């Protein structure tokens, strides 16, 4: 409040130089009035207390009615003030405290602020809120979709891997089977061949045995024949029968 008081003083000074300053005129009027009434002439200038401003306002308010303004100015040193304070709607009060403008200000504030409130609450804010909500929903939806797709991908990978493992197992099984069947086949063939060979060996052996036996039997004959020949050479005659029995005994012996 003290600012206002001091500003008043300053305004007063600054304003003296210019004419047509509506407010200036009023100040002079106000001051002229205080000059007349009492020694309080410094109220509008240097008073710095809380009361200064309000007193100020009161004094100045007195000047609002045209009559008094005129009356005061006729007392004052400046005659221009009377006219200048009339042509513009300005009563010379410190403008923010000028109660004559309160009605219009309140009216327009109510009208404009009401309009603003309605426009905001009915149109602008719901719309922005909707935009933000749609975006949030969309982002959440997209994230959910991404999550769903990720799960799907995971599932696909899992099933692919399962199938791969299955296929691998299958192929292994097939390979195993093939190997087993081949082995069985080979084994069977080998067994067959071996059996065949064994049989042949057996046959051959039996033949060898027989041949051997035959040969051995022949050896007896040959021995007998040789014995016969030897004996007949040495001694004369010997029957083949005797020679044979003799050989047999020797061989057995």
């Amino acid at each position, binding site marked *: 409040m003290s600012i206002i008081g001091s500003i008043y003083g300053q305004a007063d000074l*600054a304003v003296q130089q210019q004419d047509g300053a509506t407010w200036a005129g009023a100040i002079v009027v106000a001051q002229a009035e205080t000059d007349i009434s009492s020694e309080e002439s410094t109220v509008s200038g240097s008073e710095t207390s809380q009361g200064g401003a309000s007193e100020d306002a009161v004094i100045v308010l007195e000047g609002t009615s045209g009559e008094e303004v005129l009356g005061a100015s006729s007392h004052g040193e400046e005659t221009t003030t009377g006219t200048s304070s009339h042509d513009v709607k300005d009563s010379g009060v410190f403008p*923010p405290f000028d109660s004559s*403008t309160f009605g219009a200000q309140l*009216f327009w504030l109510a009208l404009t602020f009401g309009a603003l409130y309605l426009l905001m609450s009915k149109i602008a804010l719901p719309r922005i809120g909707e935009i933000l909500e749609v975006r949030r929903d969309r982002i959440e939806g997209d994230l959910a979709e991404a999550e769903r797709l990720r799960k799907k991908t995971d599932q696909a990978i899992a099933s692919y891997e399962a199938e791969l493992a299955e296929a691998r197992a299958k192929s292994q099984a097939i390979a195993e089977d093939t190997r087993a069947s081949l082995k069985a086949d080979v084994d069977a063939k080998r067994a067959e061949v071996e059996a065949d060979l064994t049989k042949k060996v057996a046959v051959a052996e039996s033949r060898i045995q027989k041949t051997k036996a035959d040969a051995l039997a022949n050896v007896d004959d040959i021995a007998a024949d040789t014995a016969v020949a030897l004996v007949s050479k040495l001694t004369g005659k010997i029957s083949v029968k005797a020679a044979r029995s003799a050989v047999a005994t020797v061989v057995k012996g």
Partner: protein
Amino acid sequence: MAGTDPISQFNIYELFSFGTIGADAEGAGGFELAFTNSSLFMVLTVGLIAGYLILSTRGRGLVPSRLQLVSEITYEFIANMVRSSAGNEGMKFFPFVFSLFTFILISNMFGMFPYFITVASHLIITVALALLVMTVVIVYGVMRNGFGFLKLFVPSGIPLPVLIIVVPIEVLSFLSRPLSLSLRLFGNMLAGHIVLKVFAGFVVTLTSMGAFGIIGAVLPFGMTVALTGLEFLVSALQAFVFTILTCVYLNDAIHPGH
């Protein structure tokens, strides 16, 4: 517009009138429904806010355009402010708080233009807004809590002897809220603009005094530039402070039991 007079910037003058309502026979009394410069800037403020928000979101872009992004950021900013200080229930006051913030902010920003009037530099406007806030707080607080709203003045968990002292203090502090709320905004806007104008006035006065004056004017000119920056900050900050306090008071209406 009087040159270096720092007060004339607050003058309210009539642009045109819709006539006088309730005047008596001699045309005295009643109230003149004037369209003033202040009214003009209120209308411009509302027009700019509504126009911008509605036009920039017209495309309802899923991927926001730059203009739409500003609207969305403002929306989120206020929504977070309301939600964090008044809870989710406070969101029913979101349009109100949003209107308050944007109205004060944009009208203050208009006030930063030379020759434009600052709507909030008039006490009646800030008082009206503060009383509106307090009315909403009290009406909603009583509607929602009934007599429980009086718990606002009785902090819980305090022994009875102390309460005798605390309750009057709480009542006083509640009563002073509209006062501080309105005077803070009014005082800041008024004083800031006056100081700005005073320094700018020095520049004008000094430069008219010749070469030395021009050299002397450099300092106040620098101050004017710096103060202009400061005033932008103050304009935005006061809008923010007014709004966040509104949220805090609304929170009291919703949860009076501290």
